[in-house]
């Protein structure tokens, strides 16, 4: 077999840029989907039925549609429905945010529900408003329980961003595939891509393990 690894070295700047886009996509998605998840979780708990119903529908829809399908949907259907002409990057970001917000909402909901009712009552008894109780008492405690799960979600998301390559977002997978199809160096590029994902993903997984140990619920 005739392998030529020099193509990987020659493409290093392109690959690096792709990796950068992958990280940016992961970070931006989480930056939006964490508050998004909190808001959805709060909406699901709302006493105002239409609000709760909307949030439940949103979560159950976007959690249970395959992400790949969601990406295609965002690319082909969303512009028609909304009249918005977004860039592939923004379109991919929307698809990821819809999916991960729905996931995070469930994470926050279980975290919030795991805090005893007495904690809320203790806050209310001091004269706090429901919002103050949530921000000062419930959220900080739920946060500790939720953090390990969010960290795991981050790592899955980091890998799942590769799915947006199907709509030509220039992240790592798409970049590597482009180089592959131009150079015909299939084995080298796929191996290099796997290696780069692993090199970036492994330390993240280790950090997640550490977070699980540090913050895992021990009660």
């Amino acid at each position, binding site marked *: 077999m005739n392998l030529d690894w020099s193509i990987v070295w020659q493409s290093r700047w392109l690959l690096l840029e792709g990796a950068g886009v992958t990280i940016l996509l992961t970070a931006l998605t989480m930056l939006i989907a964490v508050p998004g998840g909190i808001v959805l979780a709060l909406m699901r708990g709302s006493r105002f039925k239409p609000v709760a119903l909307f949030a439940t529908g949103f979560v159950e829809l976007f959690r249970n549609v395959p992400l790949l399908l969601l990406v295609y949907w965002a690319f082909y259907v969303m512009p028609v429905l909304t009249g918005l002409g977004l860039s592939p990057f923004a379109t991919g970001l929307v698809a990821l945010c819809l999916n991960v917000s729905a996931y995070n909402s469930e994470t926050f909901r279980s975290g919030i529900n795991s805090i*005893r009712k007495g904690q809320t*009552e203790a806050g209310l*008894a001091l*004269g*706090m408003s429901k919002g103050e109780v949530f921000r*000062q008492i419930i959220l900080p*405690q739920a946060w*500790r329980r939720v953090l390990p799960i969010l960290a795991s979600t981050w790592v899955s998301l980091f890998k799942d961003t590769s799915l947006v390559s199907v709509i030509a977002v220039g992240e790592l997978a798409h970049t590597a595939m482009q180089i592959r199809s131009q150079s015909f160096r299939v084995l080298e590029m796929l191996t290099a891509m796997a290696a780069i994902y692993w090199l970036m993903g492994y330390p993240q997984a280790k950090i997640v393990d550490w977070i699980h140990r540090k913050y895992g619920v021990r009660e």
Partner: protein
Amino acid sequence: MTAFARKNADKPPMLIYDKVRKNYGDFTALDGVSMHVNSGEVVCLIGPSGSGKSTLLRCTNALETIDDGEIRFEGKPLPKSDTETRKVRQRMGMVFQSFELFPHKTALENVAIGLTTVRKMDADEAHKRAMALLAKVGLADKTANYPANLSGGQQQRVAIARALAMEPHVMLFDEPTSALDPETVGEVLNVMRNLADEGMTMIVVTHEMSFARRVANWVVVFERGQLLEQGPPQQIFEAPTTERTREFLSHLGWNG
């Protein structure tokens, strides 16, 4: 029965319960309860488990809403609006059986949080006050401890200090010593006794009959959501007027 003058009977009562009813679905937890609490009084609520004592406390600070009747606090019926309810709650301190300290805050922060969040007091001033209150309950050396690093008795004393921080006009205690190891019950009862001596108005749900006997000015016996009997501790503990009270007390090992 000999005439008995209740404490501050010449002044308007701090709390008046008028035919208070509370339902949970089909179940009636409070079935037309009428009683009152004068300012400066220590009123102990006793009675079998499930008789509605906690429910009465929780209706008092509007953690539960009542279905019929009226509760009047300092001359006014409990308000309907959220904002007014919060103002009323600031004038009532509550102490829970399970402490319910905030585990992510130190003892000092637990006591200060009401002042900083609700009263919008600046942190330095709030911490100064919290410090003084922790000293008052004998925990000046535990201000930096998290609840997990305090004994049950210490946690409950922090919880009392937390409630006192809001300068309440009445303190509501719901079985404050029931979750405690026997050796730490005394330290909590002492703090409560000191509060009573200072003239704090208190409603105390308790199974500590010797505390009720010695500290209460008035004792109310509950059974199945109804008021079985009420009177000064001498009457309840030495000459109960109903057989059911006698049975309940002897069940707890009280022999007068």
